[in-house]
């Protein structure tokens, strides 16, 4: 084959194409990875926000319940209930002194199985 003929032949510069391809692949791949990572960051951001919202909602629910408990267990509520149940069959009755027995001395049992007696020297009547 003459030298002229060889010059006109379209030989593929495989090595160069491979190098360029590799460079493009590295840069392109890197860029795609970067974009993907960035998207991932945004996705995680949204998740963070959703979790924050959930925590906030839970805190609010907790606070609402606490406030409700405070209201329902307040002395004011107890008074209202007493007032409301004044005429009811099962009502809250204040413990008066007349139904209190004050034990002045503690009786010491001889042994554990013994039935203990209590003394009421001066009942508070």
């Amino acid at each position, binding site marked *: 084959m003459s030298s002229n003929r060889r010059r006109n032949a379209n030989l593929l510069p495989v090595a160069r194409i491979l190098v360029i391809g590799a460079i493009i692949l590295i840069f392109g791949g890197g860029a795609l990875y970067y974009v993907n990572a960035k998207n991932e960051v*945004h996705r995680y951001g949204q998740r963070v926000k959703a979790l924050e919202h959930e925590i906030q909602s839970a805190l*609010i629910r907790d*606070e609402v319940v*606490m406030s409700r408990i405070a209201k329902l267990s*307040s*002395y*004011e509520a107890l008074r209202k209930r007493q007032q409301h149940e004044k005429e009811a069959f099962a009502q809250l009755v204040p413990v008066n002194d007349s139904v209190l027995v004050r034990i*002045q001395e503690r009786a010491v049992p001889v042994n554990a199985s013994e039935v203990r007696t209590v003394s009421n020297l001066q009942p*508070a009547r």
Partner: protein
Amino acid sequence: MSVSPRRRALYLGGLVAFGFTLFSCRLVYLQVSRHDYYAALAAEKHSTRQTIYARRGAITDSAGIPLAANEPVKTVVVDASLLRNPDLAAGILARHLDLPKAVVQEKLARQVWSESKQRMDGAPYIVIKREVPENIAEGVLKELGENRLRGVFLEQDSIRVYPNGGMLCHVVGFINHDGVGQEGVERSMNDWLKGHDGFRYTERDRTGKEMVAFRKLERAPRDGNTVRLTVDMALQDIVESELDVAVKQYRPKMATCILMRPSTGQILAMANRPHYDLNQREGVKDETRKNRAIMDQVEPGSTFKIVTTAAALDHKLVRADTSLNCENGKFTYGGSTLHDHGHGYGDLTVNDVLVKSSNIGVAKLGLMLGDQRLYEYVRRFGFGERTGVQLPGEIPGIVHAPHRWSKISITHIPMGHEVGATPMQVVNAMCTIANRGRLMTPQIVASITDPSGQRLAEFAPVEVRQVMSHEVAEKVVQALMEVVSKKGTAEKAHVPGFQVAGKTGTAQKISPTGGYEHNKYVVSFAGFFPADKPEICALVLLDDAVAPSNLNYGGQIAAPVFSRIATRAARHLNLTPSPEFMKLPGVLAQNENGGRR
């Protein structure tokens, strides 16, 4: 003329290079020279500063029962420019928020000039209702979602709730719309309660959505601290219910009761009448909001006699058994005649001057002391200056210096006239006697804890001074114990099972036009028990009680209230009653005559 291809390529290249140079110059101009301007513009458009609100701290009683707490609520806001079906939205909002539909429709019809659209458009921020409970707000959102209605937003908000309504209202106080304490502990402890808002700098995309990845500087909010009071709500309940009974019975213009622990100065209960519901403050008069225990002054009357007696004993001018001539009930000094209540007395010991509450006897003690020494003791007991309780608006009362006294002041001040004292000062003076001469600073705040429960501050008892010697105080206590007996003026203050010491007070009311008003009295009883080791010291004071003139005395009106409160308080505090004081004479009489039971 033909141009060679090479030259043409050169021209073209030069032109392109020039173009790029121009773009580069512009780029350099924008990116370097105008960088700050455009960066600020971008930041203004996308960066925002979010405020993260701190929660206000709670107020609790000594056992941790909440007295003031926060309740999350929502503010319903509408952007009318986004609303496609205002009529349907108005119907849903009106139904859930309990508002007339016409009112909601009127609000939704509000229009403003839109710069971007260059025409009138629906207002972007219309507040439909504030302080909407969470469950109702959720219902609104759900129904709006089902009907695919856009433009209604819920903003998070918080309100202060007072679970006990009117109980302890003058002590707890309240906050204004900006969350700043206005009265009571809410005001005096505002700096501890308020907390510090946090913030966050963040960026938003063009739709307004936050880009969490671009969050910048951030500071978490610091929630307010919890303030724990010395008040015991069980005792407060006892005081309030008994005070209500007394108010119903005697219809006074005002009534006050304070319960204290003498050894520490801690206030265990404090109640005033009239009072109001902290959750419904609209239309409440200033007078009703006043904490009369520290903001009102009265002439203390006979309860003040403990000051004169203690001063005379401490100066060793007299002994407890020294006899004083009480002039058979009529004594003229400086042109003014003093009388003793009821029948007059001849000779009385100093002890009996207190027991019988003789005005003449105590006036003579005042004369023995002289201006300066009497004034000194009045001040040593804490009259004429603020007690220092951690509540706002306390007044010092009035104690004139001796150079301003009239000729008869030396006989009137010893029995509690010409002196302006707050109920707090009176009960604190009685605490000084109970505490064997030690004057303490009254305390209403016990401790402060941060939101994690760590204790930041604890308020230890503060002793102001030793007003008199221990022995003198003991002698006064002995006399005050006799006051609460058949012999004394406060038989009805007896508490079954306990030795009570105390002093009655009945002072004629000062007329605004000068002098004293007829048949108008401030009746009081200040006492403590058990007398040997006082656990509780209390003052019951009723201003202008409606009662027959022969019954309008501290011993008849205030003493029984004290007795009922003390009896219940002793049970609550699990104090052991002594059998020897169980059936003292006078108990049955109290229950039969004036007692509630």
